[in-house]
């Protein structure tokens, strides 16, 4: 492998990139970009009481994008030699037919602002130490209760070095290190099997484990499975809902996050089209997308188009204040990107993506909200979700939920999906507490997955439809 350019943090030397950009514009493109990526990852899985597999991998390559009018050409290659990059540039340029002649591109290297320093690169940590974490988690999960019948623990780290250069003269690099740990458990009881899951994931190095005790992660997963052994079917129909802090940021990710992505807006495929400056949510709702918050899972220094991460207020006191933008959507609307251009890897075109999306604190005390809710459902943890941005209809699943009776949490409920309509649900938020927390997630869009963060304080929704089977 070539480490040329590593002294400057660049994967490919600047004169080479300049020549590749020149070639990309040869046939008349208006904008060209080279995205270079070098990714190392390690994962280890303990399952069924055994360390099953340690896996390590490397993916390295570059993608070249050429924009002509409304058309984008893209080609990628795993060959980072000048010859390989030039071939990709020519393939991407094939969308341009006017023949604009060679243009000279001069790049200026911009230092990216580091949001947090990685203290301990995972690659410098022994594999044995990583395995040890898995064993600790397995023991802790199994010690949580005799009913725990199966435990799977998973460790993963990844280092993703990127370099982005474009014909506007941008040249910037980023070194993104992420570390994660998760545990899933199965518990067996009279009513069959139940599952529990917990994870901890941050944009940090191995120092993650200075603050995160994997035994606690394991115990949380085990407890979640055990609790559900005595769970009864969730209700069916519309119910008041309390979301515990940090448990359900996915609600905002689905209820409005995706609908505020400028690509959906441009195609009139979002319920939030034409709503700028309008009251789209309860006045208690202030929603932010922020890629700059140090160690969170969706953070980075620069996005995959070379723009610095930003903090963007999307909804302020219920009023829609902004959408999220990438380079192309920003250019079309004569404004800049908001630092939301992301891609899964060099094989993909970037698009508008969220970073860390969260609801800001309100004034209420979480205990008060519960006490003032006579009946309903209390969600301690949500799983995934899905939205149709055009209709605004979205679902999100519970993985730990309880019945609320007389202002108290009572019986555990089996897993169910909840369904609602984005703007409707946002208007029905009538209480927001002061206990903000957030967590990691993986967001899928158009076949591409990227790490994101989601967060919220404890809050109440006056009515949402829950899809249980109670009443059988």
């Amino acid at each position, binding site marked *: 492998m070539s480490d040329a350019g590593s002294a400057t943090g660049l994967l490919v030397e600047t004169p080479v990139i300049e020549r590749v950009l020149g070639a990309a514009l040869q046939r008349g493109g208006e904008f060209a970009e080279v995205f270079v990526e070098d990714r190392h990852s390690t994962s280890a899985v303990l399952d069924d*009481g055994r360390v099953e597999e340690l896996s390590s991998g490397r*993916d390295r390559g570059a993608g070249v994008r050429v924009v002509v009018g409304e058309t984008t050409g*893209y080609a990628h290659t795993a060959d980072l030699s000048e010859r390989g990059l030039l071939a990709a540039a020519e393939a991407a340029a094939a969308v341009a037919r006017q023949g604009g002649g060679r243009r000279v591109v001069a790049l200026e290297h911009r230092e990216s602002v580091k949001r947090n320093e990685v203290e301990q690169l995972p690659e410098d940590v022994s594999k044995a130490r990583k395995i040890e974490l898995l064993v600790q988690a397995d023991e802790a999960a199994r010690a949580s209760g005799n009913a725990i019948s199966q435990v799977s623990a998973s460790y993963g780290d990844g280092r993703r070095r990127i370099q982005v250069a474009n014909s506007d003269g941008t040249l910037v690099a980023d070194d993104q290190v992420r570390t994660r740990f998760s545990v899933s458990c199965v518990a067996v009881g009279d009513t069959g*099997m139940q599952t529990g899951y917990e994870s901890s994931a941050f944009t940090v190095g191995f120092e993650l484990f200075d603050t995160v005790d994997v035994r606690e992660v394991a115990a949380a997963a085990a407890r979640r499975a055990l609790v559900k052994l005595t769970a009864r079917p*969730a209700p*069916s129909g519309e119910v008041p809902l309390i979301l515990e802090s940090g448990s359900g940021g996915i609600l905002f990710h689905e209820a409005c996050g995706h609908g505020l992505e400028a690509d959906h807006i441009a195609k009139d*495929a979002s319920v939030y089209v034409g709503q700028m400056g309008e009251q789209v949510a309860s006045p208690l709702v202030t929603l932010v997308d922020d890629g700059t918050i140090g160690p969170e899972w969706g953070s980075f220094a620069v996005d995959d188009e070379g723009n610095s991460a930003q903090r963007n207020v999307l909804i302020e006191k219920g009023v829609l204040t902004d959408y999220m933008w990438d380079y192309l959507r920003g250019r079309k609307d004569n404004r800049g990107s908001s630092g939301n251009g992301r891609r899964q890897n060099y094989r993909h075109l970037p698009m508008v993506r969220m970073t860390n999306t969260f609801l800001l604190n309100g004034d209420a005390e979480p205990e008060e909200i519960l006490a003032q809710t006579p009946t309903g459902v209390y969600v301690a943890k949500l799983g995934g979700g899905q939205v149709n941005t055009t209709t605004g209809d979205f679902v999100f*699943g519970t993985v730990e939920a309880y019945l609320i009776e007389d202002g108290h949490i009572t019986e555990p409920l089996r897993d169910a*999906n909840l369904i609602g309509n984005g703007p409707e649900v946002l208007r029905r938020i009538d209480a927001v507490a002061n206990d903000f927390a957030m967590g990691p997630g993986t967001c899928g869009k158009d076949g591409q997955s990227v790490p994101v963060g989601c967060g919220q304080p404890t809050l109440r929704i006056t009515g949402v439809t829950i899809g249980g089977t109670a009443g059988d």
Partner: protein
Amino acid sequence: MTDTVSQEVSPSPAEGELLELALRIAGAAKSGEQLEVYVSRGVETDVRAYEGEVESLSSAASAGVGIRVVVGGRQGFAYAGTLEESVIKQTLADARDNATFATADEHVGLAGPDGVAPTSLDLWDDAVLRTPSAAKVEMALELERRARNADARVRQVAFADYGDMAAEAAVASSTGITATARRTVSSVAVETIAGADADSQTGVGFCAARGPGDLDLDKAVADAVQRSTRMLGATKARSGKCAVVLDPRVTSTLLAVVSSALSGEAVTKGRSFFADRVGEEVAVPTLILVDDPTDARSFGASTHDAEGLACRRNVLIENGVLRGFVFDTTSARRAGLASTASAVRGGYATTPVAGCRALLLSPGTLEAADILSRVGEALFVQSITGVHSGVNPVSGDFSVGAEGLMVRDGQLAEPVREVTIASTLQRMLQSVLHIGADVEWLPGVAAGQTVAIDGMALSGS
């Protein structure tokens, strides 16, 4: 569905070249060591049209290698997204090192030849490689044009895509495995938006085939238009118990979920509600479920599994009775059985696991219209959401978002949205009323047909 490509970037590899490479690396096995090399290479093309223009055209070629080493029941794995010899050498060294950290397990080991001859299958259409990019671009543009002009109620075409891929893989091992598999897929997909403002509805239509010459653009457009326009004016339905009639696409999704509970890996590790139930009645007597990758009509068809064994037909549920599971080599050994040649893998970057490729419910005799006329009042489910968040193949709990149309007097009636349907997978299999004759071969691990299921809990207003 696919990413994309054009021929300029990378010519198709000569046949046999991949296998040669895999064999050469596998030949480096040391004594006492099992070594498996999986090499894959593919090209893709993706075109998206919007408002009469090409929104994007991507062309890509990718290749990679995944190496498994087993020493004394300990498995290590490493991969690289390149076929450069120097990187492959390092990858092999990494896999060997990784193996030293695993726990020894007598069941862990590579596949060996089992004497089953592969079925000859034609899953390759050269047209994917021969067709010029310009013609693929024209298909996407034409698809968008037809979708825009198909129905006055369609106000927007959210996407109109052409995509194709040609992929080849070879696997060779020190335990005597040598196999190659290759396939092409070509598809168009389109999403229409009907209606305006508060009453906007979406529908996705697609068509997939082995090559671009077999794609039916009008079918994809008609499907999208029908799905979006018939939902106009949809409202919530009232909560209650009812029968549901599943669209073939929904049935396919449902079977994919059931398949994860039929994986030998899940079963042997106590993560399936089917565990310990072989020989028991788990479904209605009319239900026969088979995984048959040797059926070339299936998009999951393959001559070989991911460990290089010849694919074969596996009967999983016969007349409602659970007959068995799908196994890869390791999970089969754990169960004291032989592999069913059902190893699947997500590409060079992951290890093989047991999984279904080509599920099919044996078709019944009724067409969709006959089923509608027999179910009484029911919900016809056009699409479901939240499958990954609301269906648990371990516990069997099932709760998903649904949209569709009410069935009244044997006909499709008013549209319904923003409701959920719930039950358990166990109960649903025991409550199947009808299995349609209208099999649709769909991308993914299962074909689908119209299926009616009784006694679902519908949550709405």
